C-alpha cells in the first residue's frame, strides 16, 4: 500500500517504525505520560505492560491520533508527524484494536471492518464485494462460519465483537498493528488464533505493539517488553533475558504470590439452580455452598453469561427453579435478585456495569443507595466513606472519587464495577469475567477479596475464560457447553486438558446427538 507519507523512507536502514521522543500527556488531575521515549522496530512485537492506569492506552491513543500529546515528537518510519489525527494515522498504516473495542453497533460486521475504506464505485458501496472482503478477513481468523458479515455488531457477543475489532485491525495491510488487551474478551481458543495471526504479521514484516495483563502471553509471542509505571518509562527488556517475576517487580514494585487457593470450611447450600431453561439455556442445574468459590468455564457463546443473568433476574426464565437457602424464589427482576442477596458483576462493563458519565463515588454506591439513605436522603458521609474505602482497597487509580468514570483507564473502570458489588452485603457473588483487563497486582487483590468473602460465608460463582485463574482459586469448576452444564469438576481433578475437552468436545457429542 504505497502512501505519500513514507515514500523514500522505505528502504533506509535503522529507521524505526515508531519513534516517540519525550511524550507527555496531561489530563485534569493526572499526568498520564511523563516524558516517555518509545521505539518500535520493523517486524518487532513489543509488549507494553504496566499497572492499570500506567498510561499504556494513552500512549497508543497518541499514536493513533485519538489524543494529542501535550509535549514530545512522533516519528513514523522516520518522518516527523506534527499533528497526528486518526485519518493520518490510518494513512500511515497504523491500525489498532482498542481496549474498549469502539465499534459502531448499528452497522454490520463488514461495514465496521472496512468503515473508512468501503469498496465503492462512484461512491456507491458494492455490498457483495464488501461482504466478500469481510468474509476473507474473518476466514483468516477462522471465524467465517461463525460470524456473518451482514450481522449487525450490536447483536454479537462481546467476544465476537472482539474478533470483529481484530479483523478490522488486520484487514488493512497495516504496517503497524496495535493490540490493547485483545485477549481480555477472548477465550483460549480465540487467543490461539490471535497468536497465529500475530506471528504471521511478524513474518510479513509488520510491527506489533501488544498490551496485556497476562504475562505468559507476553512470553509466548513478544520479542521485547516495555514497562510503564505511573506514566513513566521504567525499563525495556529482551523477553529471553527476563522472567515473569522480574517484570512483575518492575511493574508493581513487589513480589506476588502464585497460588491463591485457601482451604475453607464449606457451609450449607446457599443457592440451588434446578433445570433452568430459556431460549439460550438447556436444563441447567447446579448448587453453591457457603464459603465456596466455584468456577464457570466455557467457550465464547456457551451460555455462561446467559445463565448468570437469568439467575440474577436480568433475563427471562422459561422453566426451572431457583432456591436460596433452601426456599424457592421467583426472581423476576434485578431488584428481587438483589433483595435475595445476589450480586452480579456483569461482563460488559461499558454497557452493563457502569454509568460512564457519573463519578466513581456514585457508581460504587449505586446498588446500595437504598441502604445508605434515610427518608430518601443519602447519607453523603457514608457515601464518600464507602467510595474512598474501595478506591483504596482496590487501588483504583483516580485523582479523587468525584472523577467521571469515563475518564478512568480500562482496568480501573473494571475495578469500579467490582467495588460496586463488594459494597453490597450480598451472599452470592456472581462475577462474570471480573478480572478482565486488570493488572497482576490488582488481580491478587481481587483474589484475596474473593477468599475473604468466601471465608465470611459468602459464595462465589466465578466466570472466567482464563483457565489458570480458575484453577488457581476455585473449589470446583463447572463447564458449560451450548447452553448446558456438562461437567462439575472438583479441585482434586483439575486438569487443563480435561476441562478444555469438556468445553469443546461435548459440543461434538451434541452435534452427533442431534443427528
Amino acid at each position, binding site marked *: 500500500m504505497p502512501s505519500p507519507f513514507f515514500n523514500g523512507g522505505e528502504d533506509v536502514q535503522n529507521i524505526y517504525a515508531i519513534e516517540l521522543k519525550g511524550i507527555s500527556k496531561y489530563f485534569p488531575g493526572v499526568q498520564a505520560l511523563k516524558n516517555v521515549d518509545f521505539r518500535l522496530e520493523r517486524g518487532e512485537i513489543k509488549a507494553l505492560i504496566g499497572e492499570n492506569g500506567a498510561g499504556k492506552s494513552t500512549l497508543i491513543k497518541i499514536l493513533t491520533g*485519538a489524543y494529542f500529546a501535550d509535549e514530545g515528537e512522533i516519528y513514523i518510519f522516520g518522518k516527523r508527524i506534527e499533528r497526528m489525527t486518526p*485519518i493520518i494515522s490510518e494513512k500511515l498504516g497504523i491500525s489498532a484494536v482498542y481496549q474498549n473495542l469502539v465499534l*459502531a*453497533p448499528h452497522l454490520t460486521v463488514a461495514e*465496521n471492518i472496512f468503515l473508512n*475504506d468501503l469498496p465503492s464505485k462512484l461512491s*456507491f*458501496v458494492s455490498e457483495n464485494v464488501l461482504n466478500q472482503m469481510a468474509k476473507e478477513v474473518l476466514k483468516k481468523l477462522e471465524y467465517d462460519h461463525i460470524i456473518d458479515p451482514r450481522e449487525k455488531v450490536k447483536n454479537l457477543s462481546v467476544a465476537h465483537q472482539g474478533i470483529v475489532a481484530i479483523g478490522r485491525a488486520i484487514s488493512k495491510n497495516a504496517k503497524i498493528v496495535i493490540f490493547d488487551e485483545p485477549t481480555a474478551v477472548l477465550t483460549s481458543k480465540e487467543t490461539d488464533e490471535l497468536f497465529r495471526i500475530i506471528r504471521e504479521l511478524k513474518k510479513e514484516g509488520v510491527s506489533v505493539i501488544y498490551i496485556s495483563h497476562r504475562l505468559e502471553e507476553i512470553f509466548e509471542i513478544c520479542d521485547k517488553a516495555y514497562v510503564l509505571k505511573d506514566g513513566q518509562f521504567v525499563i525495556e527488556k529482551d523477553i529471553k533475558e527476563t522472567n515473569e517475576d522480574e517484570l512483575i517487580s518492575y511493574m508493581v514494585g513487589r513480589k506476588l504470590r502464585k497460588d491463591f487457593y485457601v482451604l475453607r470450611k464449606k457451609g450449607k447450600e446457599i443457592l440451588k439452580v434446578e433445570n433452568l431453561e430459556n431460549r439460550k439455556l438447556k436444563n441447567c442445574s447446579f448448587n453453591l455452598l457457603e464459603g465456596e468459590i466455584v468456577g464457570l468455564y466455557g467457550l465464547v457463546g456457551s451460555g455462561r453469561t446467559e445463565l448468570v443473568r437469568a439467575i440474577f433476574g436480568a433475563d427471562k426464565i422459561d422453566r426451572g427453579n431457583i432456591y436460596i437457602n433452601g426456599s424457592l424464589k421467583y426472581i423476576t427482576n434485578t431488584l428481587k435478585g438483589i433483595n435475595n442477596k445476589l450480586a452480579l458483576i456483569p461482563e460488559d462493563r461499558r454497557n452493563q456495569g457502569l454509568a460512564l458519565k457519573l463519578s466513581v463515588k456514585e457508581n460504587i454506591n449505586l446498588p446500595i443507595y437504598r441502604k445508605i439513605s434515610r427518608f430518601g436522603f443519602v447519607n453523603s458521609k457514608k457515601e464518600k466513606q464507602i467510595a474512598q474505602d474501595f478506591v483504596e482497597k482496590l487501588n483504583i487509580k483516580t485523582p479523587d472519587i468525584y472523577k467521571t468514570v469515563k475518564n478512568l483507564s480500562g482496568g480501573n473502570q473494571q475495578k469500579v464495577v467490582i467495588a460496586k458489588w463488594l459494597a453490597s452485603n450480598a451472599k452470592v457473588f456472581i462475577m462474570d469475567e471480573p478480572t478482565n483487563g486488570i493488572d497482576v497486582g490488582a488481580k491478587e487483590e481481587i483474589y484475596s477479596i474473593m477468599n475473604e468473602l468466601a471465608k465470611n460465608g459468602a459464595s462465589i460463582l466465578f466466570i472466567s475464560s482464563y483457565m489458570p485463574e480458575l484453577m488457581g482459586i476455585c473449589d470446583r469448576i463447572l463447564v458449560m457447553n451450548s447452553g448446558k452444564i456438562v461437567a462439575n469438576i472438583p479441585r482434586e481433578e483439575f486438569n487443563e486438558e480435561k476441562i478444555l475437552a469438556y468445553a469443546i468436545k461435548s459440543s461434538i457429542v451434541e452435534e452427533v446427538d442431534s443427528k
Partner: protein
Amino acid sequence: MKKVKFNTQMILFLVVIALWIFLAVSSEYFLTYSNIRNIMRQMAIQGVLAVGMVVVIITAGIDLSVGSVVALVNIMLSKMLAGHVSISLAIFIVLIISTGVGLINGIVIYDFGVPAFIATLAMMTIARGATLLISGGSNVFGLPRSVANFASSDFLGIPTLFWFLIITVIVMELILRKTRFGKYVYALGSNPEAARLSGVDLRIVTYGVYALAGFLWGIGGILETTRLWMGVPTTGTGYELDAIAAAVLGGASLFGAEGSALGAFFGALVMITIYNGAVLLNINPFWQRIIVGIILVVIVAIDQFRKKKSND
C-alpha cells in the same frame, strides 16, 4: 418455515392501509381522484422536510431551523420573483443560501461543539429574524401566475409537487443505504468515536448532513412558495415538530443510527392522512388534536411492541 419479519415501515404501511380503508368507508369523498391528489400535494412539502430531518436524526442530531429556513427561502424567492429575477437564477440563489445555512449549522455543531439542539434553535431564531428583516414583516405579493400554476399542475396524472417528494425519497434512500456517505451517516449516529478512530472524517460528514438538510429545506421552501404563491414571513412555524414526528413515526431514533427515508415518507403520509380524514369527517378541530395525539402514541407503541417481541 420462514417467518415474515415486520419492520417499522411495514407496520406503518399497514397503518396507512387501515386508515385508508376506514376513511374510504366513512367518507364518500376520500377515495376520489381529486382528494388523493390533494393528499399528494399536501404531503409533498412535509414529506421532503421529514426526509431531510431523518438524515439529521440518524446522526443523533436535530435541525430545528427547518421552518425558519423554509420561510427565509419563501421570502427571498418571492422577493426575487416579484422583482422579475429569472426563475432559474432565483432558485439557484435560494438553494445556495439554504445549503449555506445548513453548512453553518454543521460548522457551529462540529467546530464549535455546540449541541445540535442549541445550534439549530439559534439558527431558527436567526433565520426568522432575517426573514422578517428582509420582508419588513410584510407579505410579498406579485409573483408570476406561472408559479401558482406549477403548484396545481400534474405530470403523468400525479401532482408535480409529489414528484419532488418521490424523487427526494428515492435519492435519499439510495444515498443512505448505498453510498459511502450514507454508511458514514449511520456510523456517526451509532458511535462517533468509532467512526473517528476508523479514519472517517466526521467534519465532512457533519457538514454534509446539515448542508444536505439545508438543501432540502431549500427545496421545501421553493415548493412552499409555489403553493402559497406569495412570500409569508411567518410560514413554517411548527414545521420542525411535524418533521421530527414524521421521522420518528417512521422508525427514526433520536439517539441516532436508526431511521430511513422511506420510513419518514410513511410517517408523513400517516400524519397527512389523519389531517385530511379529520377534515373530511368534519371532526371538531379540538377533538382532532386529541385524536391525532392518541393515534401517534398507539402507532409508535405498536411498533415498539413489535421490536421488543422480535428481540426476545
